[in-house]
């Protein structure tokens, strides 16, 4: 290293650098790649999405439905609709599975004490926070992609084995637009749930709290949703502010062509805006907690 001295005589050593955002993202990615929970989650996701499509298809085939109803139900799992079904399944699975990854990304650093090593190295707390957040959102997109591919491959197998024709003729501009929107909606929805777990874990400095919040919050809102729908307009108004309601509003719009939307469902713009608000509020809360609070070094 080139060593120079400042006016006080200390070596300034200009080659010493604080890590940039890119280096920190690389560090977070490396830690995740070797972390068993990532691969377990990915296996559950790919296995789960494939299995659900396969089992749902087989159970529909074996059901006592009349031929017309059965054919209509089976269409859900056969390409091209199998792609949308994959998005729906993966979004639900990811919403649960990635909560663990999201909470672990920040909560584990406090339980292991490694956050002290990182902060005392001179790395900016802001950059550490955003490196983790960016890594998390990247995992969301990657897992969604892999999960949908796994589900779609299963759907292709089901399509061919059921004697249906698999053709690329249906792939046109509208099809691509619908598929792209489904991908964006799914990524966004999973991202919101992951941010929830990440933020709670960051504020509480606990992996368990993050996982509990990520899963428990959704369960609680679903119970609340049922209750609110029975108490008139006030209930409906509050219901429109719930995360699950707005997630459902977006997911209902996934599909090829116009979709049937349930009554009292928020508009896509409203749902997106409310979820963005939740996300930003959670991120802001976690950011302040991460960058401002003391990190005690032992007793």
């Amino acid at each position, binding site marked *: *290293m080139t*060593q120079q001295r*400042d006016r*006080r*005589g*200390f*070596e300034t*050593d200009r*080659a*010493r*650098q*604080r*890590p*940039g955002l890119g*280096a*920190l993202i*690389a*560090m977070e990615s*490396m*830690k995740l790649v*070797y*972390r*068993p929970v990532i691969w377990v989650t990915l296996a559950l996701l790919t296995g789960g999405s494939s299995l659900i499509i396969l089992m749902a298809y087989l159970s529909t085939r074996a059901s006592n439905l009349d031929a017309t109803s059965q054919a209509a139900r089976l269409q859900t799992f056969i390409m091209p609709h199998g792609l949308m079904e994959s998005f729906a399944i993966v979004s639900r699975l990811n919403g649960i599975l990635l909560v663990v990854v999201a909470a672990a990304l920040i909560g584990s650093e406090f339980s*292991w*004490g*490694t956050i*002290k*090593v*990182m*902060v*005392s*190295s*001179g*790395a*900016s707390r802001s950059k550490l926070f955003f490196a983790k957040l960016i890594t998390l959102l990247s995992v969301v997109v990657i897992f969604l992609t892999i999960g949908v591919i796994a589900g779609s491959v299963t759907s292709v197998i089901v399509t061919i084995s059921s004697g249906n024709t698999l053709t690329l003729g249906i792939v046109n501009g509208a099809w691509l637009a619908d598929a792209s929107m489904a991908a964006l909606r799914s990524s966004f929805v999973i991202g919101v749930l992951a941010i929830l777990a990440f933020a709670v874990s960051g504020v509480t400095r606990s992996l368990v709290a993050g996982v509990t919040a990520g899963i428990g919050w959704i369960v609680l809102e679903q119970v609340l949703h049922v209750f609110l729908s029975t108490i008139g307009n006030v209930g409906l108004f509050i219901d429109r502010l719930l995360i699950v309601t707005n997630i459902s509003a977006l997911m209902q719009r996934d599909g090829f062509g116009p979709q049937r939307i349930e009554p009292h469902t928020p508009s896509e713009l409203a749902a997106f805006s409310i979820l963005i608000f939740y996300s930003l509020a959670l991120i802001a809360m976690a950011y302040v907690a991460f960058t401002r609070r*003391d*990190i*005690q*070094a*032992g*007793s």
Partner: protein
Amino acid sequence: MPSQLESLSAASERGTSRGATRRGTLGADEAIIRTIGLTKRYGTTVAVNELSFDVRAGEVFGFVGPNGSGKSTTIAMLLGLVTPTSGTVELFGLGQERRGDSLTRVGAVIDASAYYPYLSGRRNLLALRRLHPEVPAQRVDEMLDLVDLRGAANRRVGQYSLGMKQRLAIAGALLHNPQLLILDEPTNGLDPAGILEVRHLITQLADLGTSIFMSSHMLSEVEQICDRVAIIDHGKIIMNGSVAELMSTHRQTRIRVDKPARAVEILRGLRGVTEVSVSNTRITLTLDGVAPADVNSLLVLAGIRVHELHEVTPTLEHVFLASTGSNEYSQA
């Protein structure tokens, strides 16, 4: 090992004697760590109270105190983990606003278990390397060799013993060739062989010019390694100085006589005898401005036979216990 340590040295000149040349280069009042009125309150509890001390470049500075005295909180404030309630901390002459820059020159061992248990020792260091972009990849293996962990480098850290984790922590702290090493209980949990290794390593690093700030409960170790020591209790520094200075403040004279009761009566009335304690026929005195030979003469003139007279230089442990309020010295 010496060649590996030399490559770690932050000294710009080789073969410098510990402390002196650095102090001469930087000026007598240049401090690598300086705290002024450092205070940390948690509600009504004052964990650190108006702490002011300097650590000079090139020295090994010991920071000792009982459990709960504020050592770890002080270290946390030095490392930017905890924000002081008031007061200032300067590292390398840089204040709070430049803390990130100054910390790039600092290596710290504050928690030996602060590693990713699912990663191997090598991968943990590779991950740490990302925090210091200027560190070349081969430094990881050099550090593993330095702390004798090359053989276990590919095992998960979760399978390491406490001693191995401590050594890995030291390797991590040295990875980026720091100019200042901050160690919080570096020998905690180590067996005697491990303690000796760490002590040897610290001494060698200090001889090569690395400044070291070390908190420890093992006073014998601090006494052997450190140039200067600060004793902290209830968040305040109660003694601060070189090891020799601190020990001289509690130097004692021990005598054995045939008539201890009579001797004690005489001695307690003598100006310059500040403390007298008796155990059987052995009397321990703390003298201030009176020579032991004068005490001997006085007792002999009073008809008391003096069988034994010698000066006792207390250990740092004695000084620590006396300073923090423990009322018994261990028998020499």
